[in-house]
């Protein structure tokens, strides 16, 4: 069940759009903001609220890589794997992260602290290599400063 907060936020979005369906991405964002990911049940609840089928909602939810349809950790690490970062040493950053966290892409640490994902260009190519953790951008990375960065996140 969606919470009252989620429902009222979604209803606010519904007032901004000419057709209900147009609010589906905002609705998914609202639910994910509260729960970190969007479950099958959430998809069905959003569908009911917007007068769509659950499959229709899911076709949108699964299209966008930053709507998570599986549980994620308390913090999501998005590692830029695009061209400028690759040229500037992305491989080493990836390797260091996987060694420190003992997980692969798409996995979450057993303590639920981090989920590790690759991501397309973060738009900070003059400071490559780069990654984001939640809302925070880290640039000019090298294999050495990654441990310190991870320590900031509980």
């Amino acid at each position: 069940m969606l919470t009252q907060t989620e429902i009222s936020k979604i209803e606010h979005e519904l007032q901004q759009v000419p057709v209900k369906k147009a609010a589906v991405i905002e609705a998914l964002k609202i639910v994910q903001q509260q729960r970190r990911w969007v479950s099958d049940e959430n998809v069905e609840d959003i569908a009911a609220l917007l007068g769509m089928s659950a499959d229709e909602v899911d076709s949108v939810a699964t299209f966008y890589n930053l709507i998570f349809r599986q549980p994620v950790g308390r913090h999501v690490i998005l590692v830029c794997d695009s061209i400028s970062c690759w040229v500037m040493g992305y491989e080493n950053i990836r390797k260091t992260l996987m060694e420190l966290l003992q997980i692969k892409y798409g996995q979450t640490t057993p303590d639920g602290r981090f989920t590790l994902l690759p991501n397309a260009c973060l738009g900070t190519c003059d400071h490559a290599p780069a990654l984001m953790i939640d809302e925070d951008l880290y640039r000019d990375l090298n294999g050495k400063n990654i441990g310190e960065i991870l320590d900031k996140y509980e």
Partner: protein
Amino acid sequence: MEAPLTSDIQPGLSLDLRAYEALGGYQALRKALQQMAPQEVTALIKESNLRGRGGAGFSTGMKWSFVPMNVKGPKYLVANADEMEPGTFKDRWLLEGNPHQLIEGMILTAYAIQATTSFVFLRWAYKEAAQVIRKALSEAYAAGYLGNNILGKDFSLEMHLHTGVGRYMCGEETALLNSLEGKRAVPRAKPPFPQISGLFGHPTIVNNVETLCFIPHIVNKGAAWFQSLSRTGDGGTKIYGVSGRVNKPGAWELPMGVTMRELLEDYAGGMQNGYRFRGALPGGASTDFLTADHLDTPMDFTAVAAAGSRLGTGTMVVLDDQTCPVGFVHNLEHFFAQESCGFCTPCREGLPWTEKILYALEQGHGTEEDLVQLEMHTHLLGPGNTFCALAPGAMEPLQSALKYFREDFEQHVHEKKCPYGNHTH
């Protein structure tokens, strides 16, 4: 040297409304609303020869002039701030540093096409820009630059910030409109063009951030001034960027038509010690390689096209002599295969195939036949064979790599390994 878009931006700071007004901000809006008819604004932009800075380089004034002015119902304006072309980081500078410049450009554009609702479509990763724009929008509403009867005139405009949830496809203007409508970001058939039938079926203009930021300056100073900023026939300044193994990677606003050599040597400080220049993508991931032979090419739409590539976003990615060109292109095709929306068959099937072949070459499993296959894909996924420009764009670096770095591809086949010892993921 004039740099109208960026000379007021200070590193790490964002100009607020008061600072922007103190520098002459919103004077262009006053001028247009008081002295110019909407068609006159469009005519001025057409005369300036401003060409879209998102990559395609289409005449901005021409684009606006396709909007039917006498239709009933709403019209829309969208700022495309979904900067996601790998190697591109120019709009981030404008968005974070001077949000009101974009907002004023958008209000003027909306006035020219008589749009009543507008959106900034911002990519999710630009968190700081999102904060800055939210604040700037509330300042602009409070000051009466947005909302009903702007500056007491008979013109009203709403402006919203929409933050995306990923996917490169959102940068394609019709896919962007689908995304704004809450749909999957797949492209739409053209015609009808968005200028006639765009967001929710109404006339819509989608312009790049850098393009829109020029509008207040052209309204203030005129078409001839804009032309005079450039060294070539393509008017204005351009934000150029360089990334890769250079001494000072960065972005600079320079006269349109500076050469690749000037960018590389005078601005980016030359190659890092121990690295030699082999080639560069002049304007992001979906542009053809240019090589050392092309370094004196002026970086404008016309000259880069004549050299066999595209100006694209004007942000150059450098390939050095110690980075494997096959691995480089594999990285690009991995990106494009992943970002294909899956809607049309050649792109959905062909891009993963090129990615797999390039991976096999890197692993030492490639054959001569693979090189023929790659060549074939550059035609099969080329212009006219796919629904949108994603796959043809993806083929540009591949076809030019096969042309300029042929010996590297051959070497991977003959030595059954990557001679650079690079690894791919």
